[in-house]
């Protein structure tokens, strides 16, 4: 039934991206603040405060400072948050309260183009925030270049992955308050147990296996490798994981949004 309307995807999705970009630009100074301040706060609290207790960490046979250990994790978490929150709360507000999607659906765009535009926008926000944060973190000498530059395309890919999951929840959530559930069950455990603030090896083996299912675990490994300049074939596995994760969750998110919007 009108499948073509529902699934047709052309480059027109960039119109939706552009709409969000215009709104973002309007208050860019405020949008730029979190990725500047957040790493500063964390480096202050964890680096100077907690770091003094922890000392150095052995990571893949290298002695690195605690700050150098968590800086890539902060970048990764930042990628996850930007995309996930954009495609949950912000997308939900546009869809449910502002009826923005309804208005766009009466133009030549398809529903899929609206949703893809939203997800690509979430990934773009992840990229912008990562670029700013990377610059701040680099000031502390915590990023090895040129590999560190690869963190930028990685942040876009990660944005697609986490944005797709966010959009899936937007497609099925009954109300905006229910986003607490995926945050509590999905985002918070990842935030803590993805090799972010302590090495995965410190976890019991069964927990390590669970952690390997988390996309954030692979993202942190990738970002850490790139920031420390320790690049090997082992990173390809994480990259493959994130690509597959996106390829699986984008269609699922589209399907959920179709169910919700096309009546």
């Amino acid at each position, binding site marked *: 039934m009108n499948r073509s309307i*529902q699934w047709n995807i052309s480059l027109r999705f960039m119109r939706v991206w552009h709409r969000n970009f*215009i709104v973002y630009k309007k208050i860019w100074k405020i949008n730029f603040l979190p990725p500047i301040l957040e790493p500063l706060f964390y480096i202050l609290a964890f680096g100077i405060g907690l770091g003094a207790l922890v000392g150095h960490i052995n990571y893949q046979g290298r002695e690195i400072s605690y700050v150098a250990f968590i800086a890539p994790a902060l970048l990764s978490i930042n990628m996850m948050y930007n995309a996930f929150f954009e495609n949950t709360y912000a997308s939900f507000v546009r869809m449910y309260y502002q*009826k923005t999607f309804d*208005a766009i659906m009466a133009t*030549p765009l398809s529903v899929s183009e609206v949703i893809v535009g939203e997800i690509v926008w979430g990934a773009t926000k992840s990229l912008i925030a990562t670029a700013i944060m990377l610059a701040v973190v680099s000031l502390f000498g915590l990023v090895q270049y040129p590999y560190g530059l690869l963190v930028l395309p990685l942040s876009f890919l990660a944005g697609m992955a986490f944005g797709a999951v966010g959009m899936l929840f937007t497609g099925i959530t009954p109300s905006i308050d229910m986003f607490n559930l995926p945050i509590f069950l999905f985002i918070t455990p990842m935030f803590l147990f993805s090799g972010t603030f302590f090495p995965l090896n410190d976890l019991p083996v069964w927990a390590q296996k669970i952690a390997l299912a988390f996309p954030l675990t692979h993202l942190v490994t990738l970002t850490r490798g790139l920031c420390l300049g320790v690049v090997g074939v082992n990173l390809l596995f994480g990259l493959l994981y994130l690509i597959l994760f996106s390829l699986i969750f984008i269609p699922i998110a589209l399907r959920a949004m179709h169910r919700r919007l096309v009546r």
Partner: protein
Amino acid sequence: MIMMERHPHIIDARDLRKVFGDFAAVDGISFHLLSGECLGILGPNGAGKTSTIRMIYGSSPMTSGSLQVFGLDIRREWRTIKSRIGVCHQENNLDPDLSVLKNLEVFAGYFSIPRGEATQRAEKLLRFIALDHRRNDTVTSLSGGMMRRLVLARALINEPRLLILDEPTTGLDPQSRHQVWEKLDQLRTDGLSILLTTHYMEEAAYLCDRLIIIDHGKILVQGKPKDLIREYAGRDVIEVLNPDSELLDFVKSSQFMHDSLDRRLIVYGQESDHIFEKMADHYCVENCIRRMATLEDVFLRLTGRDLRE
């Protein structure tokens, strides 16, 4: 223009159905809209008005039937069709994150209208709806009437061949309503084809060349407003408050169209009815009102007086 001549029917709907679960919101309706015509769809709440037009502007897939817009099949050429339609939704869905002018410019982007052209059109439309002095304000600072006019302007940004309006003046004060009507009348005079839904009879009578009255997803009647009034409510109406039994018997024994309500008797008569005149002279003292028949009489006679909630 050549296409429009080949397809005088802007909309051609045949046996259109929309089913939600086991509820048929639109239950097999057929109608057409001619080029340059203003067609109104009337019906009580839940009659299927919005479901019908949502299928036409491509936001809702039809369950069965056939639907051609501009002579094109909505299932296959939806993108072309949607690019030539302007839609005013029932709910205000202006973009609160954008200014008045930006609302129009960004919307033009969805139609792939180049930026310079978009700004030109936006400025022209803001003058048309008399909002050019508010171009940089946020839409949330506008009054209800201004927002409606802006929604109308936004629907015109792609220079549509068909304008679809879902209850365009619901919730507006009389001044704003008349202002919207005036603009719509102007567009109609310029030859724009218009499809609108409403439950304001005055609006339908004022704007529409032809009406379709629907209820429970089916078409009850269609025709020109004047013809519908003449056929279903006559020319004059006498309303009697607390009629006595003598009058009730008289009306029942006569051939008059009438409705007997709890405390009111409504009698519909034609101009040539002498008995109608007689009744007016004979039975009516103080409790009678004689007035012209209206579309509202037609509507209530056809769709009943039960509340739709």
